């Protein structure tokens, strides 16, 4: 589709204008407030012991959540798109449900399930702390990030159709070879964006994690909890902005990495 220059410029202006007002200006404000006192101050506040622990914890949660979501997310997307079974609509709606659940409710639900006196509360007596421990935070993050990879991969699977995979299987490739050589490369952009969104969402998750975290700095405070604590408890606005900027930087790095990996694979 070759669009005329006039139309192209109009579309571009509208899109960029919308993004400018809604996205660029707020982010610019955050960055301005973070760096207006200089890089030194910023560095100081993101290298306090509590901040480093918070970064480590956030990244640890991401490191657990992303691979799990990639594996199960791709399997779910394949089952939904390529599978032939009844009740597909119901399962697809279930996959989307985590979005509809307010973070407060996620926290409450997990506590009802895994907390003291909850359905699986007995797990505490085995010495295994879920709520107020790392597993609780991982479960909360898994809940809120579950839809992304499935959602991103599904439309792409629809779009590319089954022809190539059918061709491969008639040529004798087994399921695994078909997946690794044909399906996976075809869904890579969807998978990449899914991973980027999963990482961004995990980093930014607050409402559910604050309920299932014990909140002790250096031990169970993620970066978002640190931002919140700095602003609310410490009145340390600047520290809060600095940590928030750190979160955005990490999300950006992940995006750049995924794009870079896509580009290098494409060029090969």
């Amino acid at each position, binding site marked *: 589709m070759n669009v005329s220059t006039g139309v192209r410029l109009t579309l571009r202006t509208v899109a960029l204008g919308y993004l400018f007002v809604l996205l660029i200006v707020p982010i610019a404000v955050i960055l301005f407030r973070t760096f207006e006192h200089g890089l030194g101050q910023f560095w100081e506040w993101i290298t306090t012991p509590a901040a480093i622990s918070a970064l480590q914890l956030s990244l640890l949660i991401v490191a657990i959540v992303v691979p799990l979501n990639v594996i199960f997310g791709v399997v779910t997307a394949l089952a939904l798109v390529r599978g032939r079974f009844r009740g597909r609509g119901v399962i697809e709606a279930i996959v989307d449900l985590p979005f509809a659940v307010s973070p407060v409710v996620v926290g409450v639900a997990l506590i009802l399930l895994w907390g003291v006196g909850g359905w699986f509360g007995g797990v505490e007596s085995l010495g295994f702390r879920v709520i107020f421990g790392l597993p609780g935070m991982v479960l909360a993050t898994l809940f809120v990030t579950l839809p992304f990879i499935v959602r991103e991969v599904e439309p792409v699977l629809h779009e590319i159709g089954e022809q190539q995979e059918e061709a491969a299987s008639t040529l004798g490739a087994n399921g695994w070879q078909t997946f690794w050589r044909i399906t996976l490369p075809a869904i890579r952009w969807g998978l990449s964006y899914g991973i980027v969104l999963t990482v961004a969402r995990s980093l930014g998750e607050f409402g559910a994690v604050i309920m299932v975290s014990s*909140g002790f700095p250096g031990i169970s405070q993620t970066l978002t909890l640190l931002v919140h604590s700095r602003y609310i*408890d*410490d009145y340390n606005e600047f520290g809060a902005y600095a940590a928030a900027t750190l979160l955005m930087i990490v999300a950006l790095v992940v995006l750049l990495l995924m794009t870079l990996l896509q580009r290098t694979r494409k060029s090969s």
Partner: protein
Amino acid sequence: MRQRSRLPVLAALALTAVLVLTGCGGGSTDEPGGIDISTGTHHINLVAYAVPKVGFDEIIPAFRQTAVGSDIGFSQSYGASGDQSRKVARHVPADVVNFSVEPDITRLVKAGLVDEDWKSAAPYNSTPFGSVVALVVREGNPKNIHTWADLLKPGVEVITPNPASSGSAKWNLLAPYAAASSGGQDPESGLAFISQLVRDHIKVNPKSGREATTTFQSGQGDVLISYENEAIFLTKQNASSSASQQVEYVLPPVTFQIENPMAVVNTSDSLTQANDFLQWQFTDEAQHIWAEAGFRPVVPEVIAETADLFPGETDKIWTIKELGAVLGRGIDNGKDKTGWAAVDQVLFGAKGAITAVYDKGGSTT
């Protein structure tokens, strides 16, 4: 080509990952160059509401300098009082708790985590510090706010957090209620005042004290009902804030005593140390530290010595005990209720009068 451009990227990533994830550099202090307070043979987990953090930041290092506290490491968790209390009830590791309102400790008594006689376990009902309800206004007090009646002047917008979303916010409304109802003797006048306040002068409902302060500082409203220690803190911050964020505060002539109790959790591993910490709060040194941080001390000698840290004349400071005694007469099937139990049932519970005012209130401005 592929090998070359991928390798340095992956190498850098791996290096960063190793550095960050191998746990180097972590800790619990959140200040550049701050001192670490987490080391020691014994350990105390302090779970508190958000407001006293500025105090504990001074108290804990001082405690660790004393003989009894020298070998105790601390972890501190802060948050909204109700949320923190619920967490402790669900067995978040805690040794000492400090909440904004007594019902948050009563919840733990019911859960069996705090002894029933916790009030007598330490002096002054186990409440080492407190505050009073104050009115924060813009620098220069342009709308001339000095009393509760001034809040009802036309065109005055009042910011106070919603008591439904923040238990700590109940104190803010008890002050005008007690003032207008003479300590509960005239409940109708008290309610009339609150109704008018909510109906005509309260527009936004921040969900916590801090959000209320942020809303006020962003330009909304003319008066912020707040704790005196928060007001002191905000005026101290004026030196570094922009002109539009500068504030001052006024003590209304009739206000309310805010009591923030502290208790030891009886399932603690460090019971002795936790008790030592609690008892130490009532020493001269600790009381002075609380006063310097803006919290009213409870030991009479220290109150006298630090009186100039709390400017402002008040005619009457109502207490929850007085109000509860009046409101609680015969409300429990003929029996009396006292203190917070009475106040909560009459004013803030599901069928409470102030709850009803808020439910019907909304905004008509």
